[in-house]
């Protein structure tokens, strides 16, 4: 990877990052294909579409069409929009079944209101959070994106956006703009205790409030981001984003070093499969000062 050790968004705009070389990886690299397909599958699962019929979906940041392939496999019709010509050329070469548009999601989506039964996005929305031109204001672009997304969705349908937020402030910025645009919903975190498998899905609903799905093997976090704090992600060897879980995790109402905190930490380590002493009446008891 060209920019090992830092996030790709810091290196420039997506249309330059996703050049021919990068597009080739998204076509040939079987591990990349596998990861994208799995995320597309999970996103589709979280969309809770009606089971009996093919739907008309929007794929934001469709790239070379890997997620779109999965949508076609499930029998849906889809339209993809992406900002990188190289990635879309790769998609055309692969003869995908969806329709493609070259455009900037931050400038709004060029569709009639109520066009789509649902929307997914895989690893794309975090690119809106970095300003690449002096005229860009991330909050404004995010709001433009979310308000146009709200408009083009059929009322009562969902959008599931898988993304890699850099930190909790970024996640909060994104969720604030989504809420301003009229969406309800929450962030679903899959495998929150695993550095490699942890994935964030922003599940948005364009209708009256409904349930937020449960994350796999972990907790559902609500819209008030700021529950977990993140360090900046680092790209690992194969381009897979790795996270360092910070030592201090601020949880709602749990004071650090209290008995509750100790019990929670032990529970978490048990879930990770580590060896933990059993909980007794002495667990987390107050020790003498010189201890």
């Amino acid at each position, binding site marked *: 990877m060209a920019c090992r050790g830092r996030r790709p968004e810091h290196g420039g705009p997506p249309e330059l990052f996703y050049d021919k070389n990068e597009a080739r990886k998204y076509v040939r690299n079987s591990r990349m294909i596998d990861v994208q397909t799995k995320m597309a599958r999970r996103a589709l699962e979280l969309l809770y579409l009606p089971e*009996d*019929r*093919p*739907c*008309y979906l929007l794929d934001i940041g469709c790239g070379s069409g890997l997620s779109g392939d999965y949508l076609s496999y499930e029998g849906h*019709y889809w*339209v993809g*929009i992406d900002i990188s010509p190289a990635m*879309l*050329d790769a998609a*055309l070469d692969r003869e995908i079944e969806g*329709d*493609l*548009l*070259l*455009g*900037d999601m931050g*400038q*709004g989506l*060029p*569709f*009639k209101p*109520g*066009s789509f*039964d649902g929307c997914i996005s895989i690893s794309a929305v975090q690119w809106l959070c970095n300003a690449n031109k002096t005229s860009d204001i991330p909050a404004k672009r995010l709001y433009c994106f979310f308000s146009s997304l709200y408009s083009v969705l059929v009322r009562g349908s969902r959008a599931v956006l898988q993304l890699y937020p850099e930190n909790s402030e970024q996640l909060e910025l994104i969720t604030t703009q989504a809420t301003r645009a009229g969406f309800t919903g929450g962030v679903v975190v899959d495998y929150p205790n695993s550095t490699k498998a942890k994935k964030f899905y922003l599940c948005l609903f364009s209708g009256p409030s409904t349930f937020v799905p449960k994350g796999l093997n972990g907790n559902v976090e609500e819209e008030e981001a700021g529950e977990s704090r993140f360090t900046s992600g680092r790209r690992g060897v194969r381009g897979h984003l790795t996270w360092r879980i910070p030592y201090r995790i601020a949880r709602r109402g749990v004071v650090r070093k209290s008995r509750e905190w100790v019990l929670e930490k032990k529970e978490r380590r048990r879930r990770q499969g580590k060896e933990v002493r059993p909980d007794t009446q002495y667990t987390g008891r107050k020790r003498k000062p010189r201890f």
Partner: protein
Amino acid sequence: MKLFTYNLLSLRVGVGPHGFPLHLQATKVHINPEDFNPDSVAHMIPKVEWVAFLEVTNTLHLIKLPKGPIHGHERDEKFLRKMHILQETDVLEGILQRPRLSFNWSKLISVIQMHCAFSTS
């Protein structure tokens, strides 16, 4: 691009009163046979922009279609089958138009170029 997707395209910069319809003169079209699912087609019908749709089908001399959605269309199988061409027709080449301005239609549509082609300034 499928006929249905073209029908849903809308520009934010003033084209028609709401940014659509964009009149398409299709020169090259391909019909892909697809499985017919009446539910799916029934859900697409309320979204269709009829004027633009009829224009395109008339220029292409595809099958004859009624002037608007029929009341109770969910149950009318013949009508649904006709509308199924929405999903089957793939417009490969053409010209997207408004008076005095046009934009060439190809397999990959650039939204930015569309805006440039149709902006009034």
